[in-house]
């Protein structure tokens, strides 16, 4: 509400720092970071072991030579990651919903969901990848795919779905009871209540946790290298076995690192926006 008051002192002039004033903090942080980094680099490089370390891990020639192979392996990682993540988000939501259904007719679904989640949250993902990735193709089941890539991806999906279902469930529990009362008062049935009231809010509440899961899966796709899938890690290992040099692993590591940055920044951005929204709500 604008209040007219001619005796009031004028409002403060808008803050408009000069260019040099605005640059000063940037300059200070840049310089101090630079000094620290330079000190660490100097210290590391002046140590007696440095040349050996550099030869084993940062051999430029090996890195350059291994890059095409490792990169094409990494492209496979990314494709598996995207496909698996999409399936995980859907499958785990289905399990969370099944677990939340009330009424005796849904008892079998509830039971199945609890069993699935309990079992596969408790088994290490690596073990599951070995079991399905080696075990199932060996069985030669008629009508089932025989590729290790397929079953390894299934193992990741199962392992992550059990975990993600619990993330969704926490989100659904955190939805205020009043929302369900309102849905009931409006006449929405159990599924409509989930579809229109509970699930959209649950997803919003657990978005940061879902994003963290996606970041984590991006790295865990590398588990498939143990069943012979020629992903970035596997390709790097093949090169290492030939050259007796770890630089190819460093190439893979750098690729994973670079790929993780956008999602991590997005998670930060989303969380900040989310915090702002929650603050708005409590006005």
């Amino acid at each position, binding site marked *: 509400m604008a209040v007219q008051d001619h005796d009031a002192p004028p409002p403060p002039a808008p803050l408009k720092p000069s260019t040099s004033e605005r640059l000063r903090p940037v300059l200070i942080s840049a310089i101090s970071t630079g000094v620290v980094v330079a000190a660490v680099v100097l210290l590391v490089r002046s140590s007696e072991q440095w040349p050996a370390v550099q030869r084993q891990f940062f051999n430029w020639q090996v890195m350059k030579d291994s890059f095409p192979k490792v990169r094409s392996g990494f492209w496979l990682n990314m494709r598996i990651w995207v496909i698996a993540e999409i399936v995980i988000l859907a499958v785990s939501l289905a399990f969370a919903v099944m677990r939340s259904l009330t009424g005796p007719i849904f008892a079998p679904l509830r039971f199945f969901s609890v069993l699935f989640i309990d079992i596969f949250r408790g088994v290490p993902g690596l073990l599951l990848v070995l079991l399905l990735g080696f075990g199932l193709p060996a069985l030669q089941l008629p009508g089932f795919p025989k590729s290790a890539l397929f079953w390894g991806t299934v193992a990741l999906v199962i392992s992550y779905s059990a975990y993600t279902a619990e993330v969704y469930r926490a989100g659904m529990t955190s939805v205020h009871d*009043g929302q369900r009362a*309102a849905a009931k*008062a409006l*006449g*929405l049935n159990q599924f409509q209540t989930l579809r229109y009231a509970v699930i*959209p809010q649950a997803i919003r509440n657990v978005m940061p946790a879902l994003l963290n899961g996606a970041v984590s899966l991006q790295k865990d796709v590398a588990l498939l290298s143990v069943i012979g899938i020629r992903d970035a890690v596997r390709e790097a290992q093949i090169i290492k076995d030939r050259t007796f040099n770890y630089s190819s692993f460093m190439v893979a590591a750098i690729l994973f690192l670079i790929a993780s940055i956008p999602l991590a920044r997005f998670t930060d951005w989303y969380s900040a926006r989310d915090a702002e929204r929650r603050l*708005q709500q409590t*006005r």
Partner: protein
Amino acid sequence: MTVPRLQVKSLTKYYGQTLVLHSIDLDIAEHEVVCLIGASGSGKSTMLRCAGRLVEYDHGQILLDGVDIASEEMPEAELRRRVGIVFQSYNLFPTMTVLDNVTLAPRKVHKTDRAVAESRARELLELLEMDEFADAYPDRLSGGQQQRVAIVRAMATNPDVLLLDEVTAALDPELIGGVLKVISDLKASGMTMMIVTHEMGFAKEVADRVCFLDEGRIVEEAPPAELFSDPKEPRTQQFLQRIIEAGRL
């Protein structure tokens, strides 16, 4: 003799071993407004929730135009269309716009055409001076505005009865008046209402009858002029005395 619009017959409700409603009887005629008052924990919300079939009860009946709301003759969808409920905490769906909140039940439960549902929603929003917020999300609105949207949402199916549970209790003092005005207008338009409220001045003004609840029983029931100025029961007198001392009457 005409059948009351809403009839509560020896309603009894336990929460576990605790008796919360003790054989309650109450008739509300068409166009009548009944206010429920009483101390916190006396069972007002529970009674309203039973009447709106949000919770199950142990004994007794609730009749809407003579039909038991828990019987086969009253399909769930019909009950939901004919009874609107508004809550203290508004409970709008935060991931939906105001318009979607209002049209959700007509469209998804009662299969009304989107265009029809939206035009009715816009009419109602305009009536409550909320039409400019049709496309806003609830968390952009003040509490008073959200509560007005919640009232519109409850009215979207053209109900016969509105049940209101302390709809101003969560509002900042300066926002209460606007919402109370809306309810007075509803009364003027002939809406049948059961209102749980702590606003004694408002109850005095809007109610045809006031019921004082204490420990799950209706202790006293009278027109507001009578109940507030000349309460018969000692427990009503005590309650009103406390309210007066708190400066709220």
